[in-house]
């Protein structure tokens, strides 16, 4: 299993009585591509933060790629996230004032895999794969188009060869044409590298590209209670 949540409960320390997540049992198989949809405020970001180890569950078991995140300390979870999980957001995927190469290199900084010579070749290869012109590699990414930024964001997410890719509404800020290109590139990439994809969006038009579609309201019982 790529993801296994069991009796997971989460509430922010400031409001311990107000549970944000309450998941009895939810899992995602290895290399599965899952589309999760749900309204804003349904605990979507909290779920993704739990799966990436940014937050720790108040109780329950959170297993990602066979590792119990709930048993790890903060530093171990940071390291695990850097090494095994790729992340793409709706926007602000990159640090705007540094170039594409630096953004990707930064992601590698926190992972174990750290050979400078190979890294440089890998970055160049990834940027070329995603059709980023060489003249744009060193430009501050804030000066590039949204479409280019999203493609660089996937390249950054892929640099550490993650086994799990989390995409949080990555197409929301793209137009129809860019969205289709982005989705095609993303699906081809995860298939090619056998990556488990957890794609969260409210755009149901994208659901048809996935083998499995889950509603967050069915996963998170806390939402029902509220």
């Amino acid at each position, binding site marked *: 299993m790529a993801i296994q949540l069991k009796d997971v409960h989460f509430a922010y320390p400031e409001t311990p009585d107000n549970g944000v997540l309450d998941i009895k049992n939810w899992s995602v198989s290895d290399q599965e591509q899952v589309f999760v949809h749900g309204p804003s405020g349904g605990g979507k970001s909290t779920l993704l933060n739990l799966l990436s180890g940014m937050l720790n569950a108040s109780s329950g078991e959170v297993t990602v790629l066979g590792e119990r995140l709930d048993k790890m300390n*903060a530093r171990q979870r940071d390291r695990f996230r850097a*090494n095994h999980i790729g992340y793409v957001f709706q926007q602000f995927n990159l640090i705007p004032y540094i170039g594409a190469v630096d953004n990707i290199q*930064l992601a590698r900084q926190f992972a174990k895999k750290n050979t400078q010579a190979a890294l440089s070749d890998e970055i160049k290869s990834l940027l070329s794969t995603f059709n980023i012109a060489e003249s744009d590699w060193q430009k501050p990414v804030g000066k590039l188009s949204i479409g280019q930024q999203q493609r660089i964001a996937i390249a950054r997410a892929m640099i550490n060869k993650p086994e799990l890719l989390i995409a949080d509404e990555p197409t929301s800020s793209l137009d129809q044409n860019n969205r289709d290109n982005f989705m095609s590139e993303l699906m081809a990439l995860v298939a090619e590298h056998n990556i488990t994809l957890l794609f969260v969006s409210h755009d149901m038009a994208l659901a048809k590209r996935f083998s499995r579609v889950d509603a967050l309201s069915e996963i998170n019982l806390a939402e029902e209670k509220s």
Partner: protein
Amino acid sequence: MFIRLASKSLLNRKGSVLLTIMAMSVSIFVLLAVEHVRSQTKESFNSTVSGVDLIVGARTGSLNLLLYSVFRIGSPTNNIDWETYQNISNNPKVAWAIPISLGDSHKGYRVMGTTADYFKYFSYGSKRQLSFTRGKPFAEVFDVVLGSQVAKKLGHSLGDEIILAHGLGKTSFSLHDNRPFKVVGILASTGTPVDQAVHVSLQGIEAIHRNWQPGVQMLGSSSAAEPLQNLELKPKKITTFMLGLTSRMATFRVQRDINNYRKEPLSAILPGVALSELWQMMGLLENILRLISALILISAFLGLSAMMLTSIKEREREIQLLRVIGAPAFFLFLLIELEALLISFMSMLLGTAGLYLSLIITRDLLSSNFGLHIGLNILSLNNSFLLLLIAGSTMIAAAIPALTVYKSAHRGG
């Protein structure tokens, strides 16, 4: 990568960062300037005279006597009879004596009438004797020896003729133009008021004041017309004199004898004791200046801390992104600290460079107007310690925003 990220982040916020750097640079400039000028003044004053056991002048306060006799600051209260000088210098306990006559000037530089013994016995710094870069001590009545700065600034060289002026002003209408002096020697630089002095013989002083009433030349008189051999050039009055004793043990005894001298009221001071009195007086002022500069620096640190804290609010998404790609909370803490340190180092660089430039521009002014010889070696041990202290304080000031980020990262931000 870490440093590149921090520096590019600062460049991205160049407006507020630049203002913070300017505020810090100014306060570092003030702090270093106060410390440098303070220590250099002390060093300069302490090294101005050495090996002199007693300084004697007309009855006055010890500080006043020290200031006008050694540092050429202020004015003497009265003159001393030549006979008195001779009586005291003939005391068997006195090894050597240097008479000094002040009151004339040359283009703003003070003229000092003395004897050739001055070049033999006067020492400065760690008992370093005066030396000549060119020429020799004066031998003739109208010979003059210039301090290094006087020669440099006025462009004089050996053989040049100069005119002395009556009084101490930069511009004088009472010139001794009837008796020009010939430059026969130029002293090596000492970093003391000696560099700013024009040295002539006591006979020279006597000769140019021939037929002068106080302050003005008597009408119809022209001493230039009289041949030198006809002139009685024995000095009648001098301003002050320095004494070297045969034994240090005799210092207090000789001092007491001079202070109780019956024929005229005199003061004899120990230069070291008078200097320490001066530092005691200056101590309070020094501490006030230090306190003011420290307060200015603290306000700059608070500004830095506030700027960093505000920037964190603006950079929430960026910090979140760093967390997502695996940056530990401690990395974010260090990133904020590094950014603050880069601002601090840049400010130190600008503050130090600013001070260096200011000293280059003002050192001649300080030297000629106040007798302060301020060196350009800003990075003294004290100032290096201050810079280290600033770096340390920067880390403390940045700890508030850095800890805010650290805590927020731990909460899951």
